[in-house]
């Protein structure tokens, strides 16, 4: 559904973004691109030492994917805030799906806004990120 700030209504859904399975290559590239160099995401030896079976995805990778889904629907300049809670670890091979919907229309700091509930989930349906964004409609 096209984002039209004049006609947006509670219940309107953001187009779903389906990502490819998480790969080691993506984690290595994202470490460099994002500045998140925690070796637990790129070095299996470090991950195992920390009690994990393998490396796992940066929370910020899913947060960036979810932001991509949002900006492919709502122009970035309308986004006033964006926040998430990291609910579950995303593992290698997981297929992240990003979705969202308008849950409230409100006035914030004198501006008409919409609150969009945002979710990143795995193919199993398990939610990995639960968040929301406030977007300006003026």
């Amino acid at each position: 559904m096209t984002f039209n700030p004049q006609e947006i209504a509670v219940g309107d859904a953001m187009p779903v973004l389906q990502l490819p399975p998480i790969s080691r290559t993506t984690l290595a590239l994202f470490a460099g691109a994002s500045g998140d160099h925690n070796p637990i995401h790129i070095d299996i030896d470090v991950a195992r030492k920390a009690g994990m079976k393998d490396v796992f995805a940066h929370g910020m990778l899913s947060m960036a994917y979810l932001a991509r889904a949002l900006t492919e629907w709502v122009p970035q300049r309308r986004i006033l805030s964006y926040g998430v809670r990291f609910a579950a670890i995303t593992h290698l091979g997981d297929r992240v799906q990003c979705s969202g919907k308008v849950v409230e229309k409100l006035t914030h700091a004198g501006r008409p806004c919409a609150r969009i509930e945002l979710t990143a989930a795995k193919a199993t349906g398990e939610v990995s990120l639960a968040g929301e964004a406030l977007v300006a409609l003026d």
Partner: protein
Amino acid sequence: MIDRKHIGYTPPPILWDVEKGRIAFFAKVIGLTDPIYTDEAAAKAAGYRGIVAPPTFIFGAPGDSGETMKLIETLEIDLGKVLHGEQRFDYHAPVCAGDTLRFQSKVSDIYDKKGGALEFVVNDTTVTNQLGEHVADLHSVVVVRHG
């Protein structure tokens, strides 16, 4: 247990250059295709000063500068036990390639749950640019798992 004396800890500010090559790299990894992230003319046509930093891009500064690792060392946290719990961005003005941003962070709270099995470190950061504009605020919650 993390010493609660660190509540209020304020590291020196970070200065961080927003580079177009880095934005292009980030956009490619994430799969962003809007040319405002890679093409200056497209960004300007869309009303920006220059190539636009994607919404979560500025989170790179505390990692690049070493501030994240220094905070973990200062608080004597085992990096292997750290998970990112929450992250929030409040946006006040666009961030574009060529900007020099200033990040001033503060440990605003440290608390625990489940009888100390989980500890939480809350960090709040104010971001301004070379024009003196307040561009964003970052709010992070890091979880430290014990046992």
